[in-house]
């Protein structure tokens, strides 16, 4: 069972309190009604699913109930960092040092 740091509660809590919520930094256009089919496909259907560092959303469901973002290594399952929703993507190279 992983320990995950909730950036709102500012502490590590067991995985049981959290729910995974898909890839992070998939921005919904404020003019979504007008975007092209290709742009909608990218937004709705296409996910990066890499082997290695992923940016993903989690929800501290059985805690503060906030959604937040995390950078995790899918090979080791290690969380590099977690950060609040809306904050920019952290610098991966810096985290790996």
């Amino acid at each position, binding site marked *: *069972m992983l320990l995950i740091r909730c950036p709102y509660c500012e502490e590590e809590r067991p995985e049981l309190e959290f729910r995974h*919520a898909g890839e992070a930094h998939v921005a919904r256009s404020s003019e979504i*009604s007008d*975007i092209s*089919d290709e742009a909608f496909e990218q937004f*709705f259907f296409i996910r990066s699913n890499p082997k290695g560092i992923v940016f993903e959303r989690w929800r501290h*469901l059985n805690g503060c109930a906030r*959604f937040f973002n995390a950078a995790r290594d899918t090979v080791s399952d290690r969380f590099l960092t977690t950060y609040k929703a*809306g904050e920019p993507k952290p610098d991966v190279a810096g985290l790996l040092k």
Partner: protein
Amino acid sequence: MTQPFRIPGAGRLTPAKTVRFTFDGKAYTGLEGDTLASALLANGVHLVGRSFKYHRPRGFLSAGAEEPNALVEISRDATRKTPNVRATVQELYDGLAARSQNRWPSLGFDVGAINNLLSPFLSAGFYYKTFMWPKAAWKRLYEPNIRAAAGLGVAPGEADPDHYAARFAHCDVLVVGGGAAGLAAALAAAETGVRVILCDEQLEFGGALRYESGARIDGLGGFDWARQATGKLAAMDNVRLLTRTTAFGYYAQNFVGLTERVTDHLATPGTAPRERLWQVRAARVVLATGAIERHMVFADNDRPGVMLASAARAFLNQYGVAVGRTIGVYTANDSAYAAAIDLKKAGVDIAAIVDLRDDPSGPLVEQARSLGIEVNPGRAVVGVGGRNRVSSMIVQPKGGGGKRTIPVDALLVSAGWTPSVHLFSQSRGKVAFDAESQRFLPGQYAQDCVSVGACNGTDGLAETLNEAFAAGEVAAKATLGETSAGGGGNARKVDASEDWAGGMLGSAPGAGADTTVKAFVDFQNDVTAKDIRQAVREGMRSIEHVKRFTTNGMATDQGKTSNMHGLAIAAETLGKEIPEVGLTTFRAPYTPVTFGAIVNHARHELFDPTRRTAMHSWAEAHGAVFEDVGQWKRAWYFPRPGEDMHAAVNRECVTVRRSAGLFDASTLGKIEVVGPDAAAFMELLYTNPWQKLEPGRCRYGIMLREDGFIYDDGVVGRLSADRFHVTTTTGGAARVMNHMEDYLQTEFPHLNVWLTSISEQWAVIAVQGPKSRDILAPLVEGIDLSDAAMPHMSVREGSICGVPTRLFRMSFTGERGFEVNVPADYGQAVWEAIWAEGEKYGACAYGTEAMHVLRAEKGYIIVGQDTDGTVTPNDAGLDWAVGKKKTDFVGIRGLKRPDLLASGRKQLVGLKTVDPKVVLEEGAQIVQDPNQPIPMTMIGHVTSSYWSENCGRSIAMGVVAGGHGRLGETLHVPMPDGSIAVEIGSAVFFDEMGERLHG
């Protein structure tokens, strides 16, 4: 004497404390402190099981958790039967009843042993090849027969009556293994004051010190030192000692799973839990898991009586049991000599020591010789005599030559010691091969842990203790943020120790590639050296493939005794070095864990709770039949005496439209959307326009996913400018809340809105029918119920029976209707008051079945029944609910996808059978041409279908390709007993003008 192999004066058990037990129905006596294995051996019983595949007779290989052979069934009563219990681990208690497994009709004479003669057909991977033809026979003939003939114990047939406990624990240092190394590490860590947990799978700490007679520490015998150390630890408040506790799995971030066997060793378990699952999170882990002795791989090395030298020594020094009267020893290292010496000193005859090494030397070898034990260097045991028990060993010079048969009734073997790196490997650490000592040792660590002692390849006792004391101190100091070189003030004086280094890997002489003998590598899975060579010959190059093809090291055994031998034989056959071939991955659990421990409290109500509404007991008292809707119990229908379901539902449906009915709608999801931007938020989450909805009015809302498909629906009341009372489907309550929170927090965080789930705060009583207003009027205060003041689709706040209410004028039946929301605590009282009024008008209580029929008569859809996640508002005929002028809502772009705009989409329509008496089956397919040969072109399916007493005929809805353009067409529903003709039409079957809604 009842225990002829018990040696007076040997071991630590008390002769007076006898314990009775049975094995295969026969009564025996053992001693308190025995394992089932030591007690059986004390009685001279070696034959205890039949092997997995070949049904070969098997005895005890070991004295511990690595036991692959002696698996038995322990039963306390009819429901408490545990298969595959290692007899070497099961502690004896008075009245214990054990049975052997995988034999028929008896252990001594087993018909299944024919498999041994058929073994040329049963070699590695046989089931992939032999039984592939004819294909159909696999399922009916081959598989059931193979499963019956092969296998271990039988799973219990009844539910487990025992209960299990669970603990979450946190500590600074977790020490796994309570031998010399583990005790030392725990002592050093505990002395710094940090929280320490020390666990060991045995009933007492000490590990190999329990039988290693040559060890002396601080002037004490090894085991006495262990007891002293244990006492010291037990007296410290910061230490938790767990015996009979196996660390079975090492997971991410130093999360280690332990199972503690609480009552399996007790004659009367009482009310204590059977096992306790510990989920430990440790800042640092010290692995002191020791090493496991390997057997020698030679012909018929599985005969009962052939066992590991360390096992014979443990049986002698711990339990006072000699495993034979005339014992042979076959070894490739020194440690087996110690067993021979201990036995010889106890008065047991050692027939001979056969040593593969050409020139064994050293103190143990000298001591054996001086005791008069015959030592045969440079020789091998190439076979054994006996069937159900070894009767002799056949000795030959390892380069070939004359054979000599030496009578023995037990044969001790040792090919050396394999460091137990299972947990290290599970922690994702990388093992590294040490060419010098020919073993895999912990290499690169992946977590905050350290290995000490034999599992780290540290051989001597002095080195082990020094290493462990240092590691314990370093680990503890690290949790305090301090660095330490370790070992300060903790040096122990080791006066004597034994050397366990050396040994050999792979098959021994006489079992080489040029032979066809059965030399077992993996006893539990019946894998021989020949099988592994065959796997390589048949093209398996990776050790992972060899493992799966032969099953070597699989299942509960996880290769404890077999892994290194198997690897060495594969490497030799491949012509590669061992590290080039690599080690297979060790899987959790280290030893089997019961389902009971894992499932633990999560059973029945604690796993899947039942939710009951505030009015549940009223419905129960009035004879309701309930149906499960998710976790909810919902009243399905209320049969009166003599009524079946059909009659009850018909009566309920007719009564609602004639007078009125009461329905418990409490399970609907309810969410309050509050705040200055509440209307703006509703605009974004629902397809409908909300800004202009006046406070006090309601609207039917549709929620889409971003892809444009219907996700949920429900009536929404606007209580005030900044407050909406949203209802959802019963099943959708939680996910709609999650969906709303997701958008509010991440996509629309600029909106000032607060969301609150209020599903369980309000009980909901639907009062539907022409008399509904008359029924409610006398009870309601502060609300004008007239049509003019409170038209259809409006909401008012006031009180009913003196209780606050949110009163909705709305309808899911097509009749004039109300939904009375009251605080859940008052639900039943208000229901009873309304019921008393309703009875005056002949109203009924109706259940979910009548609710379904009534809504279908009106063509109202149920999301999840008439929609399936691929239905758009247009498909469902609900285009009117999509705000055409809106520039944004979730799903607005998805609705414009080409596929969603294309013609020929499946659309919701009404279906009337040409024969009005025929009721269609929900889910049935719809076709255009009933005479088309199979496979027919299916153009849709039935989603809802009922008998409607109000319409005097059957009614149905379905989705049909291009359905909206097919009104009036006749289509067909093919069924096993013929095709049913249906006419496509409007989905509104009753009161098509909708006049009754308004009274």
